[in-house]
Structures are given as structure tokens and as C-alpha cells.
């Protein structure tokens, strides 16, 4: 059964709530009372439950199966964390209540901030950024503020070829000229090329470590030292921190700023595309410039909020506020519950199992799928493959769509850009060996079909709610909102009937 749109089944007189009928009476709307109808459809409660339940079943999700999505880290989302986030003291408090009535909420923020600092070996943390990309802006703003404080108006940010797309977008958005850093043949930043480019115009570098080829940047400390020596700052994209959590502290490698995607490393749910949360840990050099508001623990143990009202004394160099209120509280509670659940031993096991799972896949598949950097040793939490060896006419896309028919979500395709037809596979630590073995069987079979030129892969997926969708049509003639169709006479739509 196809599920219609709410506009096709709802009516303007139907509602799934019981509220008093609006009465005549006081109207102080300044003459702005709405007179025109909106055209918003309503559904009764049973219809609503059914509509969204049915829709949900057209989604693939972590709760249904493995998501080998490199760089995006889809792992188990504990239900404890959902329960915790809904405790009334967190879910039902207003951001501008007097601080004496929200000390516990502030403690959550402060406690999470504390462990983020400890896990990364940094000096401070900005908790308000609302997603990884927002965190990148925060980090760049700190760098800029620090340079400005020295009267130093550098205009270039260096970014490796293999960077996440957000990195150059952020740097460009922030008004910097973006220049590439080349990679070595084994997929790492070319230290010598970097050193050669450094100079008084370079504000900083943005590096992902482990990088997007799934490799640890061995020279990270040397890179940092060189950048610092040249008067710049090091921004680290922390999207892959889950590979090293509990084993490597970025602060020890000379990083000045790094955002942490709470949903990647600390398992807040992805939610079909957000909400995210991207706290940014900061070095001693950058911490004074971090945004408002934030929390501070007092000697007596209470936690205070530092905002505009008291920032003058407490945090005078802040570059300002990046958004309303105090950050993604609902994600903080989940991430804190995750950290406390794992503890010091568990977090170390997280990165160990994530890396173990990725290497197991790498070694189980390298004979049938080209693995461009497999020669250079173990990978980190993700294994990189390419389409080299596929028969003519078959591509990474075809193999990926074939995975859907095998019951898996496709891996990340065509990223990183440095490898042709790349396939980035990240199993995460929350997959069992049995699950990985099933994935290996499926991928081996698909790889063999692709090498043998089995053109039926072009039709994949066939076992999915939809076949391949026409994305060109969608972009050429965008239909971005529902509108009433032309209706043959005598067949009024439900919503035109004013109810149903």
C-alpha cells in the first residue's frame, strides 16, 4: 500500500486534539487577527499514528541493520539515553529560568564538558555549537579572534585534499582563502609540502585525524609544531574521534581546536538528519576566545552560567554568542549517559573494537575489492575500497545500490575524493562478528558480480520501497511543497470539502 500525503487524507475540520471551541471575547491582536485559511490538513489521532508508523517502515535504520557508512558513524543508540533525556528536570525546564532552579542541568553541561576536556587533553570546551559544521565555525572564529588579538590578519587556511566538504566550506564562509595540501601516495598529509606552504599569511590548517582515508596522521605532532612555529593554529576535524577515544588525546598532538560530533563518538541518535551537537574543545591559546554562554564550577561545587550578564568579569575575550540559549541540552544528557555507561575502560574498548571491526573487514575483502591503502598497514575505524577492477559500465553506485537488496545500507560512496570510485566502510564497534560475517558474504558476492560484469546490478535496488529515483527531474523541475492538484469536476478533494 502506498502512503498518501497528509494533504491528501487530512481535512481542515479534522483534528487529533481536543481543545475548547474558540469563543468570541478578548481580542488584543492589534488588528492582526488571521482571516484567511492556511490550508493545513488535520488528522485524527488514529490516522496520525498509522500515517507515521507506515511512513517509518519505509526507512532503513540502525535498529534494523548494519550501516557501514564511512565517516558518518552510525552506531547503536542506547535507549537508556532516550529515557534520561526525557527526565522532567532536563526536558521540562526553560533555558531562561533563574539559575538557582537549573543547577542540575548546568551540572550536566559542566560534567560533560569536563569529560570532553579530559578525553581530548585540551584546556576548555565551547558547548553551544549545534552540529559539527557549526563547531567548525566556532573553531575558526576562535582562531580568528586569537589572531586579531595579536593584530595579525592572516587570510589563508590550508585544507588537505581528503578533507570533509564542510572544512573548506567553513573556511570559505569565514572569509578565508582556502588552499589544498597534497597527500602522500599512502594517503596522508604531505608534511614537507605543508611546511613549504606555511608562512605569515597562513592562519591555520584544518586536518581530519584519523583522516578520511581511514588512516592515522602519523605526523600530526610535527604538523602542529610546524604550524605553531609559523604563527598559525591547528584545527582538527573530530568527526573520526571515535577511532581513538580513550587511546589518543588530540591535545597531546598539538591541536588547538577540535569539534566533537556527539552523535558519532558518543552515540546520540542521528534522527534522520539531526539534531546534532558539536562541542569544540580548545587549547589554552584559544580557550579565552570561546563563545558565550558556558558553565563554570565554583569552588563550593555549584555550577554557574557565564552569559552576557557576567561575562565582562569572567570571560572578557569571548567572540560572542553563536546561537540562542545554552546548546543542545537534549544531546548533552544522552552523551553524558553514554560516557558514564562506558567509563574509562569501556571507551577504550569502543575505539579498540571499532578499529578491530574495520580491519577485519579490510582483510576479509581486500582480495575481491581494491583497497588502495591496504598495503600501508592497519586502518583505523574505517576501511577504504575502490571500484578498480569492476567491469566496464559498473560503478561504485551500482554496488552500493546492490547492498540495499542484500539488506544493508550502502557504504559511503565517492568519498574521499582522492580515490576514484571510493567506498568507505565503517562498521563501528556496536556490530557483532556474526553481523560482519554476513556483510562480508554480501560484499564478496556483489564484488564478484561487479567484476564479472553482471549488469543486473544496474537495476538495484529491487527489494526496497522505491526503485532508483529520478534526481535530475527533482532538481530540474523542483516540487518542494504540496499544492492542490487539478481535480476533475465532481471530485472535490477532501480538504476542499472543508473536512472529511
Amino acid at each position, binding site marked *: 500500500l502506498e502512503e498518501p*500525503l497528509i494533504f491528501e487524507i487530512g481535512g481542515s*475540520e479534522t483534528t*487529533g486534539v481536543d*481543545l475548547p471551541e*474558540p469563543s468570541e*471575547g478578548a481580542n488584543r491582536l*492589534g*488588528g492582526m487577527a*488571521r482571516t484567511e485559511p*492556511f490550508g493545513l490538513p*488535520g*488528522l485524527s*489521532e488514529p490516522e496520525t499514528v498509522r500515517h507515521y508508523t507506515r511512513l517509518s517502515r519505509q526507512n*532503513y535504520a540502525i535498529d534494523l541493520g548494519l550501516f557501514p557508512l564511512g565517516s558518518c558513524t552510525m552506531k547503536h543508540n542506547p535507549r537508556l539515553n532516550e529515557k*534520561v533525556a526525557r527526565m*522532567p528536570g*532536563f*526536558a*521540562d*525546564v*526553560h*533555558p*531562561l529560568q533563574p539559575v*538557582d532552579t537549573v543547577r542540575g*542541568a548546568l551540572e550536566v553541561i559542566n560534567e560533560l564538558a569536563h569529560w570532553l576536556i*579530559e578525553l581530548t587533553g585540551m584546556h576548555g570546551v565551547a558547548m553551544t555549537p*549545534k552540529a559539527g559544521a557549526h563547531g567548525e565555525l566556532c573553531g575558526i572564529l576562535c582562531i*580568528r579572534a586569537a589572531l586579531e588579538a595579536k593584530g595579525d590578519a592572516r587570510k589563508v587556511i590550508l585544507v588537505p585534499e581528503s578533507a570533509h*566538504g564542510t572544512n573548506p*566550506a567553513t573556511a*570559505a564562509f569565514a572569509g578565508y582563502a582556502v588552499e589544498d595540501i597534497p597527500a602522500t601516495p599512502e594517503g596522508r598529509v604531505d608534511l614537507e609540502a605543508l611546511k613549504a606552504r606555511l608562512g605569515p599569511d597562513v592562519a591555520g590548517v584544518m586536518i581530519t585525524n584519523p583522516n578520511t582515508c581511514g588512516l592515522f596522521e602519523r605526523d600530526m605532532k610535527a604538523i602542529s609544531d610546524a604550524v605553531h612555529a609559523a604563527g598559525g593554529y591547528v584545527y582538527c576535524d573530530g568527526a573520526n574521534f571515535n577511532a581513538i577515544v580513550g587511546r*589518543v588525546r588530540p591535545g597531546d598532538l598539538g591541536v588547538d581546536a577540535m569539534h566533537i560530533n556527539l552523535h558519532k563518538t558518543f552515540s546520540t541518535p542521528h534522527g*534522520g*538528519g*539531526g*539534531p546534532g551537537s558539536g562541542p569544540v574543545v580548545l587549547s589554552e591559546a584559544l580557550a579565552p576566545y570561546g*563563545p558565550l554562554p558556558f558553565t563554570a564550577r565554583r569552588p563550593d561545587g555549584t555550577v554557574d552560567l557565564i552569559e552576557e550578564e557576567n561575562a565582562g568579569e569572567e570571560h572578557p575575550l569571548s567572540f560572542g554568542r*553563536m546561537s*540562542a540559549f*545554552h546548546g543542545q541540552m537534549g544531546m548533552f544528557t544522552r552523551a553524558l*549517559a553514554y560516557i*558514564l*555507561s562506558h*567509563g*574509562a575502560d*569501556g*571507551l577504550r574498548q569502543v575505539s*579498540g573494537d571499532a*578499529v*578491530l571491526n574495520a*580491519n*577485519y573487514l579490510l582483510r576479509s575483502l581486500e582480495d575481491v575489492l581494491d583497497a588502495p591503502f591496504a598495503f600501508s598497514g*592497519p586502518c583505523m575505524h574505517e576501511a577504504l575500497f575502490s571500484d578498480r577492477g569492476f567491469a566496464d559500465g559498473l560503478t561504485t553506485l551500482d554496488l552500493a545500490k546492490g547492498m540495499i537488496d542484500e539488506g544493508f545500507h*550502502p557504504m559511503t560512496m565517492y568519498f574521499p575524493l582522492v580515490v576514484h570510485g571510493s567506498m568507505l566502510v565503517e562498521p563501528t564497534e556496536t556490530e557483532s562478528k556474526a553481523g560482519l560475517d554476513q556483510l562480508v558474504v554480501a560484499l564478496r558476492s556483489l564484488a564478484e558480480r561487479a567484476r564479472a560484469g553482471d549488469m543486473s546490478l544496474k537495476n538495484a535496488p529491487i527489494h*526496497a520501497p522505491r*526503485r532508483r*529515483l529520478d534526481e535530475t527531474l*527533482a532538481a530540474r523541475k*523542483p516540487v518542494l*511543497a504540496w499544492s492542490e492538484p487539478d481535480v476533475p469536476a465532481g471530485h472535490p478533494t477532501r480538504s476542499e470539502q472543508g473536512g472529511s
Partner: protein
Amino acid sequence: MRYLPLTDADRGEMLSVIGAPDVDALFTDVPAAHYLKEPIEGLPLHASEMAVEKHMRRLSKKNLAAADAAFFCGAGAYRHHVPATVDHLIQRGEFLTAYTPYQPEIAQGTLQMLFEFQSQVARLYGCAVANASMYDGSTACWEAVAMAARVTRKKRVVLSGALHPHYAETVRTMAKFTEDEIAGALPTMQGAPDIDGLIARIDEATSCVVVQYPDILGRVYDMTPIAEAAHAKGALLIAVNTEPVALGACRSPGEMGADIVVGEGQSLGVGLQFGGPYLGLFAVRDPKHVRQMPGRLCGETVDAEGKRGFVLTLSTREQHIRREKATSNICTNSGLCALAFTIHLTLLGEKGLRALAAENHRLACVAADRLAEVPGVTVLNDSFFNEFTIVLPTDARAVVRTLAERKVLAGVSLGRLYPGNDDLSGGLIVAVTETSTEEDIATLCSALKEVLA
């Protein structure tokens, strides 16, 4: 560890396939000097679910939950009753644990929901097209300012003094990058906003005028003259709305000529959550502006068999395709909050939203009348929807703190929002929704009377 399925036996087998002696051997690329030999210091070992739950519950109980107080806080975040159905549905694993719908064949649930969401937001705002959501209202406001600069190729931004100060601050911070010039102001403490003063600040260099509706003090007013004045100078009107329920009673910004309408969607479905995650709404009145919009867009198309389906589209605007040429660096939306919003709004429908708005307004009128009777209290507003500003003869910050000790959360003081402005320090923004009872209103009035006496 309950979240980690590998057993030691598994690990051993897998290491032997890999040909490594132990897991540490997989980290050989990490220089020994920086590879931790021991677990992170200070952090306790793993804990049972029961222990973690107890710890978090203890912290939760240190807060005064709105349900346990007489509650009147607003100023950008509103407490409404969210039907149980909403939370039930957003917790379905297929929504909660789904990925961004880049593989549309197995993400039609999220995609259709987003298409419906976009359609609802556009209608609510009186616009042609809405995107699939932003982080929150304040960042959506900034994105609108940036978009206006792209559209008009001008840089001067005129902010209404009655724009939420956090939103103004966010614009100011982000403008440091783009070097836009920001002209701001403080709110005028009068019954109606100073529209003439705002219009007077618009000039030929102005890319956009940013107003809030209802404004930070709760005032509702006609934006049409501002739109006309802006358009006359080649500027866009950006209307910010922080309370979507207001649009169940008040004319939409799009109707009044706003070019970009942005707002906070938290009121519907999302809840207070101490400020986040919230839901940024973003819509444009003129479809030709679509290609300058930031954020994700979901569009209708067909699949290989001709069946209707939905995809993320126009992604050439986005960072993962355009890298440094993207319209914005935004890469996430607030998907699950958008789902909550669209479910709540579907349950309400037009009929329910109108009734909800009417009930909010009714109770707010009751509260305003009762508060006006408290000696020393003046109600500032000529017009309002569900929040208004009262002026106290003393610093409202202190009054709010004192009342909180009696479990009365009386509202948001202007002194907290605009520290250092003595002229505003008596102001208190009071929000009244359907969750406030007449008993709560009476509690507020009598407590205020005592404190002011």
C-alpha cells in the same frame, strides 16, 4: 560492556584473520609517545544502566521542572502541551536511528515526512517554499541575513530593536566573518513598536531589515509598511517568529510582504529542553529565491517504475557538493525535531491550531488583566498574542529570583536579556500558554503582590 557485542573469543578470531597479535597492534601508526597505555584518568570504570540512571535522576531532581511550578517563561521558548503520540512516534527506531536520507530508496519515510513538513511550514508562514529545517531560530535568522546579502549583493543589515537579543547577538557574531554591517538598537519601552524609527534606518545600502513578529516584548503589529519601505530601497524584509502558535491567530508574515520568514519551531512538538535541540524554520515568499536558500530541501520526483517518491534536491547549493562555494556551511538539519513538529501540527490541523491559539490568547488576556490589578504593575503592550511585558517599579531580575523560591517562574526579565540597561530593568516578559491555568495566574498575581508590597 552491554553496547559492545564482540566477545573475547570473537576478538581472538578476528585478530588472527587480520594477522595482528592484539588490538594495540592496530594502532601502530600512533606514535608511541602519544598512545595512552592506561584508561583516561579520573573517569570511573563502566557503570550499570541502573547506576547511570540514578546519577542522572539525581541531577534532574536538582532542577525545578516547569510542571512543578506556576510557569510563565517565554522570550523565545514556550511551554505547550505535546500530545503523547508525538513522542511515541519519534521514538520509533526507524525514525530515531535513521541516517540522513541520502539513499532515497530506503529513506522514503524521512523524505515524505520532510516534504509534508516543508509544505506545512510554507503554509503557516504564508510563503511559497520552506526548507527541511535549520539548527534553531537564531541560526536560521543569521542564515536569512546571509542569504539577503547574496540576493541583494548589499551588506548593511538593519535589525529591529525588538528582535530577540540572542538572535541579534548571533547575527552580530556571524557577521564578523562576512563583514556585514549590523545596525541594531534596543527595544522601545512603549505599547507599540517604533515602526517609523525602523523605517527611517533603511537606506540604499541596506540588504535587509530584520523584524520579529510578535516581537520580543510580545507586540503584534502590521509589517506591511516596513515591507514596502524595504522593497522601495531594494532591501528584503526578514520576519522572525519565535512562537508558531501565534500564527494560528495572527496574519502570516508572508501575507504582509516579508521576503524571508524564519523562526523557532520549538513550540510544536519539541518541548523546552533547557534550550535545545530546537528547530529552525526557514521559508521564502518568492519561489525564485529558492536557489539562494541554505539548508536541505526535499522534492518530489518519480522512481524507475514511475511511482511518486521524494529525494533531497538542489543539493548543488550545499557544502558536501560545493565545498567552498556552498551557500552555507550547514550540513545538518534538525530532522527529528522537524518530525515532532510536523506530527504535532498534523494532529492539530487547521482547526486545532486555531483553537490552540485562541486558548493561548484567552488565557493571556486573563493574565494581563489580573496583573494590571497588582499595585505597582503596568502592562506595557497595546497588543499581544500569548506574551506581553509588564513593568515593575523595581529590578525585575531580583523579583524573578525571589518568586522562583516560591515555585513561581514568573517570566524572563529584560535585565537578564539586556544587562546594563537601567531603563529596561523593570521589564518582565510574561508568557501564558494553554498549560497555564487560571489558578497559576492567581498564584503569580498574589505572589507578585506580596513581593512588591
